[in-house]
């Protein structure tokens, strides 16, 4: 007959006995920690502990996932890279056609050539985005104090140069120094502000604001525009690769930009989310952990 051990309130235990029991308990915990235990008894039951097994399976699973991810990176990099070569030749030939043969082609033909040209440019743009994405994925973080103001100013002046007809009011807050990888943050800010620029293009009084607010003592950065905005029920799919909320003829793009931004913010240990309203604009908020 099994009797449960009687638990007595034992006050007569000597100090040395207590120390011995403590040492034993510590040794037991230590062997548990080192995964040297097979089973634990409790409630008259033997429960198996198979941490080592679980850990090994986890390691294998992680290895497989990493291999797949790196295969995918290599794949998308080489695809994009291989596509760029022939595409550059097509672009060159189309440009030569436009420059040197316009007088020999009738207007319908010229229209075709222009379409080939614009599609080629679009494709080059998409491929560059995909290349950027695979670069971001395989990039090793090099964090330092980084001046977001300078990056934003550079981005905006590039946008103004490439699109001189647009009149966009840009308001940039002061002191936007963050701790992060300058190259990656530049890619992210290029995309974020490029988006704000693009999606506010239907607004004659477009405004973009880049700044910082305080959230429970931590800085929260944001990029706001008064463009077409989006429906909040789509806020979850917004950051998926190749996801487009707007038709290409209205706002051309690859749908990779936001997934690049998210990737950059996430590998910095930060979060990004968006708030928007159709025809009112969008605000992208992101956090970046400060230097510890």
């Amino acid at each position, binding site marked *: 007959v*099994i*009797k449960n051990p009687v638990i007595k309130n034992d006050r007569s235990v000597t100090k040395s006995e207590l120390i011995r029991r403590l040492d034993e308990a510590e040794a037991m915990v230590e062997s548990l920690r080192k995964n040297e*235990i097979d089973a634990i008894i409790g409630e008259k039951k*033997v429960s198996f502990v198979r941490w080592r097994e679980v850990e090994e399976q986890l390691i294998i699973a992680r290895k497989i996932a990493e291999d797949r991810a790196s295969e995918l990176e290599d794949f998308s990099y080489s695809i994009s890279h291989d596509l760029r070569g022939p595409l550059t030749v097509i672009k060159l030939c189309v440009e030569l056609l436009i420059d040197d043969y316009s007088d020999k082609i009738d207007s319908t033909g010229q229209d075709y050539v222009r379409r080939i040209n614009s599609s080629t440019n679009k494709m080059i743009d998409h491929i560059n985005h995909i290349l950027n994405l695979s670069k971001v994925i395989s990039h090793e973080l090099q964090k330092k104090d980084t001046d977001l103001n300078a990056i934003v100013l550079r981005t905006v002046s590039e946008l103004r140069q490439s699109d001189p007809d647009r009149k966009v009011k840009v308001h940039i807050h002061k002191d936007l120094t963050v701790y992060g990888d300058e190259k990656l943050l530049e890619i992210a800010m290029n995309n974020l502000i490029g988006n704000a620029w693009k999606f506010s293009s239907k607004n004659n009084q477009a405004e973009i604001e880049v700044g910082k607010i305080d959230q429970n003592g931590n800085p929260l950065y944001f990029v706001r525009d008064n463009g077409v905005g989006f429906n909040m029920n789509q806020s979850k799919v917004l950051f998926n690769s190749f996801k487009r909320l707007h038709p290409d003829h209205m706002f051309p793009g690859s749908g990779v930009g936001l997934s690049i931004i998210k990737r950059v913010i996430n590998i910095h240990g930060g979060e990004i989310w968006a708030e928007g309203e159709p025809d009112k604009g969008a605000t992208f908020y992101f956090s970046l952990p400060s230097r510890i």
Partner: protein
Amino acid sequence: MENAGFRIEKFIMKLFIAGKEPNSNMAYHNLQEICSGERGRICRIEVVDVLENFEEVFGEKIVVMPTLIIETPDLKSKARFFGNLEEKKEILRYLNGIQ
């Protein structure tokens, strides 16, 4: 002069294991190593598989497997070791301290 057949039990090694689980196997293997050679004559190994012999754990208040209990026949000293006994040093130090 040593007498090869001479045997005096100084330690009773009671190893509580859980079936053929890896740490239990390793603990048994390590215990055999500890009790090999000269020491074999003064150690007696008892293995209790708690999956087959569950009652035993109550007497000794066993919580985890593998657990090794080393006792002297006069019951004056008793020590417990946990895990796969990979760290033999500690056990050897204990045995040498008692002898």
